[in-house]
């Protein structure tokens, strides 16, 4: 695989193959971020495609400033989600069956798997009860595993503010999950 810089230059010149190579590594995190933000498979797919189409159009303007390339994509994804949520507030999340079927599962269903699914449902439920800002920080911090520095770049907020926001989010989630996870937390 060619170096990141060469791929960027080729993609900037309109090379689709280079664009494909460049984005194949970033496709899943962007999709996952949008999936957990929307909790709707089709919407997440549409938004993910739009992120990459927009990124492709903006490639010539992209300049490597030292900031992570993924952060740039997250920023596009975040702005698209915010626009989308303003326009379509009434969108309903996926049915739990569809929602959890999207998760990779192999082998026959067992009791253990059933418990795990219940745990995930409880976790997703607690996440959904947070404020929009809190959901964003929790998704970026714990699902996408981004550093505070990166999240600050993506959300244009200070690291201190993000730490405080995350602390409150964790506190809220913890109290809601306390019953179920009291032996773990």
């Amino acid at each position, binding site marked *: 695989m060619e170096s990141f810089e060469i791929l960027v230059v080729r993609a900037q010149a309109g090379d689709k193959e280079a664009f494909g190579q460049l984005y194949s590594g970033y496709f899943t995190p962007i999709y996952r971020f949008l999936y957990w933000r929307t909790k709707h498979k089709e919407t997440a797919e549409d938004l993910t495609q739009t992120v990459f189409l927009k990124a492709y159009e903006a490639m010539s303007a992209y300049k490597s400033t030292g900031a992570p390339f993924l952060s740039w994509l997250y920023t596009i994804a975040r702005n698209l989600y915010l626009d989308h949520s303003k326009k379509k507030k009434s969108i309903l999340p996926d049915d739990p069956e569809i929602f959890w079927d999207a998760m990779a599962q192999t082998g026959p269903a067992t009791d253990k798997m059933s418990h795990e699914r219940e745990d995930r449902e409880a976790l997703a439920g607690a996440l959904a009860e947070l404020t929009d800002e809190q959901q964003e920080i929790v998704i970026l911090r714990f699902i996408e*595993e981004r550093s505070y520095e990166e999240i600050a770049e993506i959300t244009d907020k200070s690291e201190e503010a993000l730490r405080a926001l995350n602390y409150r989010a964790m506190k809220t989630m913890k109290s809601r999950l306390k019953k179920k996870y009291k032996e773990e937390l």
Partner: protein
Amino acid sequence: MTKKTDNNEEEFNKLFAPLRGLTPRTSLLSETLSRLPAPLIVTASSVRRFSYMDVARYSGAVVFATLILLFSPLLYPMNVADEVYAMEIEAEEIADAVEYDSLAVELEYDVSDLEVEMLQLDLLGA
């Protein structure tokens, strides 16, 4: 509090691990790539922008061409006095040629018919 927060973060990291297993359907990437527009022929780097240097070059070329035309001798027809003078010189040359028995050659000179006839008459008279 920081240590407690860090501990909390570690716990939450573990807690959220199962939610990281989510992946898009495999065809989504290829579908996205197929939707990409054709490579842009005009890219930002190739777009020519207004340049003072270009304007200066163009203006310079126009001024130079104008000066060439203004000072071109082709633009100014010879005045009457010059024409008469030229005719006199030619007549002298022809007369000299006659003197040296080379009239036939000299008559090939590009002078007006009238002049040639006049010279011939003069010569015959002589």
